[in-house]
């Protein structure tokens, strides 16, 4: 579905107010990967790592500086319009719906833009209305929708023309737990039932854990990981953090199987592997606990660690 080989993008940045100097920034530096039809993969990396630049090149928005790209057998930058019929895209917070029109009008307009036949459109919309529960706000102007409603609208808009490949940028950002769950289920089903290939750009570890079997991690324009999530965590993200609030400030705790990373008054941060329950029991045996919480390593941190470990 996607073939990328040695893909590179350089930008020329001009700096300085008066004496402007040209500086070439390599946003993406010779990355290569393949995505098969029907895969659902996560694409992640810190802000400014080259994620969105890659997606822009895959969708034909940006012309690559060098390298080979084929998406659905087409060259995105040259065959942008043909490719556009076969892919769907949703760019996070950027609204692609018509702000002042009722939601259903946006769908109607997109139907004409994509030349979707009327019967196919009706069938497709009916399905989204059911799965994403659109009916309560179908006639509401987009500007009056809640974020969750709007995201469901945006997803529908990206999918109405039944694309084979879907690019989603942070589809669950800012959503509440229920809405997030619904969107995840929807994506999983889409991928499973319809065989739609999905490339998901996200910071949300939950999205990745629930959805993606394979991960691509990019940092400083270089692909630093291509593989499964379990492998990634086993290698770099095995440690979790237990945050405990003690009754009184205490010197760093000495507990088996954990080391204290930080102390702030009565609050301490303990890094550990394995079972949280056992560790909590051990800490509770030593000190009086007021409160505690277990923090999963966030993806930013994992990425940082992969990078600092020299790949």
């Amino acid at each position, binding site marked *: 579905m996607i073939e990328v080989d040695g893909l590179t*993008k350089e930008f020329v940045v001009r700096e300085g107010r008066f004496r402007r100097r040209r500086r070439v920034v390599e946003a993406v530096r010779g990355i290569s990967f393949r995505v098969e039809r029907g895969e659902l993969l996560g694409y992640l990396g810190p802000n400014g790592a080259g994620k969105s630049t890659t997606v822009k090149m895959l969708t034909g928005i940006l012309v690559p500086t060098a390298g080979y790209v084929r998406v659905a057998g087409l060259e995105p930058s040259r065959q942008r319009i043909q490719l556009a019929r076969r892919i769907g895209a949703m760019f996070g917070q950027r609204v692609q719906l018509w702000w002042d029109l009722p939601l259903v009008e946006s769908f109607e307009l997109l139907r004409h833009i994509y030349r979707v036949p009327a019967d196919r459109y009706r069938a497709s919309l009916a399905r989204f209305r059911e799965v994403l529960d659109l009916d309560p706000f179908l006639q509401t102007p987009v500007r009056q929708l809640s974020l969750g409603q709007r995201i469901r609208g945006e997803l529908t808009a990206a999918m109405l023309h039944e694309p084979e490949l879907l690019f989603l940028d942070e589809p669950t950002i800012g959503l509440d737990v229920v809405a997030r769950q619904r969107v995840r289920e929807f994506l999983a089903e889409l991928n499973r039932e319809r065989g739609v290939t999905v490339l998901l750009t996200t910071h949300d570890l939950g999205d990745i854990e629930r959805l993606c079997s394979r991960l691509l991690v990019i940092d400083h324009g270089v692909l630093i990981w291509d593989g499964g999530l379990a492998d990634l965590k086993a290698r770099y993200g095995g440690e979790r953090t237990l945050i405990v609030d003690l009754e009184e400030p205490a010197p760093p705790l000495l507990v088996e199987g954990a080391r204290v990373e930080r102390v702030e008054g009565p609050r301490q941060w303990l890094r550990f592997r394995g079972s949280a329950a056992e560790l909590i029991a051990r800490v509770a045996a030593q000190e009086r606990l007021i409160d505690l919480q277990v923090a999963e390593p966030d993806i930013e941190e994992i990425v940082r660690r992969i990078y600092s470990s020299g790949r």
Partner: protein
Amino acid sequence: MVDGLRVYGRLIAAQVRSQLQYRASFALDAAGTFLISFLDFLAVLVLFHNVPRLAGWSVHEVAFLYATSSVAFALADLIVGHLESLSQRLRTGTFDILLVRPRGTLFQMIASELALRRLGRFAQGCVVFGYALTGTHIDWDVGRALMLVVMVPAGFVIFASVWVAGMCVMFWTTEGGEFTNAFTYGGQFLTQYPIDVYSAWLRRFLAYLVPMAFVSYFPALYILGKDDPLGLPRLLQFSSPLVAVAAACAAGLVWRAAVRRYRSAGG
């Protein structure tokens, strides 16, 4: 092409429907625009309060120039005026959304809005045109009638082309929108008066480089049966449609080049 027009019709119809939902506010807005544009024409009348003729043109003849240019400009404003939202689209990144849809970007930009209140200015142009007819003696014949029918669409295309080409500045600097006003609003201001009031260099620039003189001046010379005080070839008086086609092609090329630059330099 036919499909494009049909889709344009559909897209615009949806916009119009939603604007008409607030009928009272729309009517007020259009009436306001109509009245406001009258103060603009009042300036022409005030000017002629001081002189009977300006560079050999009577007030009614200038009104004829004004009206034809105003109608053409109003149409251009209606169809492409909202392209100034391009700077916002480029800043927020929503322009990229147009690039992942299977249509041309310029087409999608044009089809993204239609502000009906701008019809107020169109109505003003029509009224001023009526005023112009009350004081000019035009020997109407088939040729003149035909010219009148052709000059307004041609003027619209010229204005719209200048607008589109000017907007492309924003692909280089999103703050540059004001620059375009020099050619659009400036062009409209200028075509309301006979171009022989301007000095030679400004005239040449306008007549040939930015083809504003073809919006109203040259066709008006023919319809009003006036001698060209500059003694330019008569053929120019009939070339507005050709100039319009050329301007549209040039604007399309400039847009393409600008989008290509955007896609390789990145937003």
